[in-house]
């Protein structure tokens, strides 16, 4: 009986507004090649986020969708938020 663990980014979504990049990381446990467990971990990459720790695929997507115009619009959105 062989148990293996695999971690993959199984879902990467670009969500509007602000072109947020939502990343779902799946940890898959297999017994003799048959999946017996799958758990998820999520994070969101905002236009102003540091992406140096992201995977190459996420970095490429962020580079494509987080244009300067998107970054500027997001910064303006954050600035106009009011504190309750």
């Amino acid at each position, binding site marked *: 009986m062989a148990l293996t663990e695999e971690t993959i980014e199984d879902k990467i979504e670009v969500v509007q507004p602000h072109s947020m990049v939502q990343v779902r990381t799946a940890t898959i446990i297999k017994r003799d090649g048959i999946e017996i467990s799958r758990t998820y971990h999520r*994070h969101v990459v905002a236009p102003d986020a540091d992406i140096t720790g992201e995977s190459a695929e996420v970095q490429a997507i962020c580079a494509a969708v987080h244009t300067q115009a998107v970054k500027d619009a997001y910064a303006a*959105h954050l600035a106009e938020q009011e504190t309750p």
Partner: protein
Amino acid sequence: MALSKITNTGIGTVDDITLSGGVYLGGTGSANYLDDYEEGTWTPTVAGESGTINSYTAISATYTKVGDTVYVFCRFQVTDKGTGTNFVVSGLPFAGARELLGLFSETNTTGLTGFMFTAGTGATSFTSRRADGWGNNCLVNGSYSVNMTYRV
């Protein structure tokens, strides 16, 4: 749609059902349509709204998403609050929070309680406010539990 482990005759017992689409519950309108359910973990990052928190530990953080509503829970321990005042927790599992209801409690030192709010649409973080006064400092060295619900 896939059904697995049907036992006996008919569909008396079904262990798992896998749907490629959603399911209508209690009616056939769009308000009856459930198209998403997911459970998982996320990683909270804690910072001061102003000032700097020197040390904290994220203990656990989970989410459950049902349709367009996300339920999040997290626990963290602040061991050296430094110059931080209120705290901001980043790393929400889903963006696009439009509406939010959140509560936090400090569980092992002072019993502080208060509310959480986000920075509106597209938010990926939430900020604390004390129940006994919005302007009062929420931050002590202690263990915090946060329960929050928001829509995406």
